[in-house]
C-alpha cells in the first residue's frame, strides 16, 4: 500500500513530533497481549483515581 505524502509532512518537517522514543521502545519489547494489558491497567488506575475524593492515584502494594 503506497503512502502518499500530505499536509502532515509539512508540519513534521517544521515541528518536532515530541514522541517519546523510550516509551515506544519499551512497548516493542512486550508481547501484543502485554502491550494491551499494560495500557488497560493504566486506564483502570486512572478511572480509580477519578473516583477518589482528591483525584490521586491509589497507593500500590
Amino acid at each position, binding site marked *: *500500500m503506497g503512502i*502518499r505524502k500530505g499536509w502532515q509532512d509539512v508540519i513534521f518537517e517544521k515541528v518536532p513530533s515530541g514522541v517519546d522514543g523510550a516509551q*515506544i521502545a519499551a512497548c516493542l519489547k512486550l508481547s*501484543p497481549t502485554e502491550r494491551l494489558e499494560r*495500557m488497560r491497567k493504566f486506564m483502570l488506575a486512572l478511572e480509580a483515581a477519578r473516583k477518589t475524593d482528591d483525584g490521586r492515584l491509589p497507593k500500590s502494594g
Partner: protein
Amino acid sequence: MTADFQSLVDALAAKQVRYVIVGGVALVLQGSARTTVDLDICYARDQQNLEALAAALAPFRPTLRGAPADLPFRLDAATLRSGLNFTLESEAGDLDLLGELTGVGGYDQLAARADVMELYGHPVHVMSLDALEAAKRAAGRLKDLADLAEIVEIRRRRDGRE
C-alpha cells in the same frame, strides 16, 4: 469505562467471528504508547459472520452508545445488515463495529494486509502499520498527527534505525 478486551476477544474467537482490530487498540498492539478505552473492529459483512458477531456480543448486552435508554435496540444480523458502522456500549465496555474505514476499505482489504498476532491466546488480525498510516492520513484530523508521528517512530525502531 475501559473495555474488557480479553472478554471481547475471547467471545469473538469462540464464535469464529472474522474481523480486524483497528483504531487505537491496533496502534497499541503495533507498539504505540497511546491509550484508548474502547475496541474498534472492522467486520466481514457476509450473513454467516453477521450472525456470529451478533451471537458473540449478545452476552454483553450491547446498546447504541449515547442513545436514550428507552430507545429499543437489538443487535442481530438484520440490524448489522441494515447499517454499516455502529458505536456501542456494553457490559464489557465500549465497542465500535465498522463495516468500512475511510481511505482503506472494508474487511477484505484490511484482512489482506493485516498482521496476525496472538492476543489472549487467540490469533487475531490487526490493522497493519501501513494501513493505520493510510487511515490516519485520510482522516486528516489534527488529533491524528500525534498517531502519525508515533507510527513513524515505531517503524524506525522496528527497522533498527535507532
